[in-house]
């Protein structure tokens, strides 16, 4: 149960990011599939280089913000639809992430290890040595150096406290931001672009802020997930947007018309519920032949069906 909460809260940060771009500023943004990985790649690479986890995480957030900035630039300057612009950035990030890590995935070692030698040196040769001659090479691997992360994966509540504190701080900061006058205009931009324009403010500013904050949250989520699960992988972001959207929608269903903390609790509670449902599906699904990899299809069907139901009832206009 603790593990589910931990993973749900990790996911909730990305869901908050998606909530900000899709709902608050109403700019559908697919970058999270890439910026989630970007956060993990930057954080783990910096950990490897010997930096502390706090610095690595902050740099990961910055990298996500930068990615959001690029999307906003493409979208506002070239007047490209934000969906198309973000797909371009997401695709480009795949290559960038591999460049950052130097490989498609990078583990986070928990302890120092020694090196390993070639098979022949370790075992004293092979049966073909009489034909091929004795071993000559002297390969000795360098092993790996441990990096310090704030998680111990023992499911004893320690990780949960760390993650919950980070989520709480992030959500409260975001809430405080949305309370300000600027934050009010920011929310207004998502609901009524014309009204903001009529007030004489450059609306592009809000597009920038929304996409930057959204992707910064996603990158934070990716960075923490990488440290928590012990690796960064170039494919770990696939489906992030859809999963986060599902979380946001779950949250909206639960809270209905009530908007706690300007709706900031939608993604948080939704992500927890999503993770809970996911673990149930994983746990009992094998009885009907359900595989972990099927979850993405189920999620996509869920999002489509909820939107379809809402459209059918003509209650709200979503997405």
């Amino acid at each position: 149960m603790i593990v589910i909460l931990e993973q749900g809260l990790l996911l909730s940060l990305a869901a908050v990011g998606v909530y900000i771009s899709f709902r608050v500023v109403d700019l559908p943004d697919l970058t999270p599939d890439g910026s989630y990985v970007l956060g993990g790649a930057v954080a783990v690479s910096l950990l490897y280089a010997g930096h502390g986890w706090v610095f690595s995480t902050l740099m990961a957030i910055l990298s996500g913000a930068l990615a959001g900035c690029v999307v906003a630039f493409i979208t506002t300057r070239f007047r490209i639809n934000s969906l198309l612009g973000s797909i371009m950035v997401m695709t480009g990030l795949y290559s960038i992430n591999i460049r950052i890590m130097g490989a498609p995935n990078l583990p986070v070692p928990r302890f120092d290890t020694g090196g390993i030698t070639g098979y022949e040196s370790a075992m004293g040769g092979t049966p073909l040595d009489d034909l091929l001659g004795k071993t000559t090479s002297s390969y000795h691997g360098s092993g790996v150096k441990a990096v310090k992360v704030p998680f111990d994966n023992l499911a004893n509540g320690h990780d949960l406290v760390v993650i919950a504190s980070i989520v709480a701080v992030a959500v409260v900061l975001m809430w405080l931001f949305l309370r300000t006058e600027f934050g009010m205009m920011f929310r207004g931009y998502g609901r009524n672009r014309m009204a903001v324009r009529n007030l004489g403010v450059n609306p592009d500013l809000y597009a920038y802020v929304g996409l930057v904050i959204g992707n910064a949250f996603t990158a934070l989520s990716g960075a923490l997930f990488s440290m928590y699960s012990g690796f960064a992988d170039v494919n770990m972001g696939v489906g992030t947007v859809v999963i986060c959207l599902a979380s946001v929608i779950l949250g909206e269903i639960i809270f209905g018309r009530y908007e706690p903390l300007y709706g900031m609790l939608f993604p948080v509670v939704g992500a927890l519920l999503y993770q809970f449902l996911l673990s149930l599906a994983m746990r009992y699904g094998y009885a009907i032949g359900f595989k972990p990899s099927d979850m993405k299809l189920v999620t996509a069907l869920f999002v489509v069906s909820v939107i379809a139901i809402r459209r059918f009832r003509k209650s709200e206009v979503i997405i």
Partner: protein
Amino acid sequence: MGIGRELVVVIAVVLCMFGISLNVFGAVKIGITQLVDHPALNLTYDGVIKALEDAGYKIGKDVIIDRQNAQGNMQNAVAIARKFASDKVDYVVAIATLSAQACAQMITDRPVIFSSVTDPVGAGLIKKLGKNTSNVVGISDMTPVETHLKLIKLVFPQAKKIGIIYNPGEPNSVTITNIAKEAAGGLNLTIVDIPGTSPSEMISALNSIGPDVDVLYVGTDNTAASSMEAIGKAALRLKKPLVAGEIDMARNGAVLGFGFNYYQIGIETGRLLVQLLKGAKPQDLESQLISPDSLMLYINLDVAKSLGVKVPADLVSRADILVQNGKEVVK
């Protein structure tokens, strides 16, 4: 708005399932995860099961096996490790490096037995070969890379550039490539990287770099193993001899193969598991390499003929598996 109520019903039903979850009492639950579906890893799995049965455990009665396959994807490997962690399986067997890394990261309170992991030390699974203090123990499938290069030198004396096909995302293959580069210096060979992070990237890298090398070499890379048929065909099309570090990979169009029987690796892994089932602690057991007795030499004289290569007779006489005139003979 109505959906809320339906959702509550769904959640309630699922919660009930939690309560009536079937627990077979007395049986030990073993989670076995493998990275990808290819013959070597499947043989490892079969070997583990065989070792359990040989020790008198009835599958489905004394031990319940939950077999999972990550389909080559790190994300799936982690999802499976999480499932094992939350399902409270008693023992975890992880086949191939990325699956083992995922399990070792997520599961620290129960024994994790890795298998077919080339470099468990470099992958951060254990501190050193032999006994360790953690919950992780297992069998390495480290392959004799230097011997492979010497075989290449013996059969193809003119060869200078060896193209090594591997996925830089697999730590096992990175180790093998590094060993090959180190050994190549002493043998007057040059190693050329043919990297691909997916089967499709691998084939296109092979098609573009392949013409520049003299011999193609593939170690025990899992990505290559799962698309070996395509690699073998590409090698034949390029008219380049292919040498493999694993027998089942060699069966797909290679001239030479020298490596382990993965069934044997599975059996050794299963023996570790049996010792744990009988009460041993992971700390009591040694992580080890497979003994040289299990190494097998594969030679395909048909492919050699089509490439115009003459394999020395004294090497042919040593083959454990010989393919000639379309027939495979296992000695």
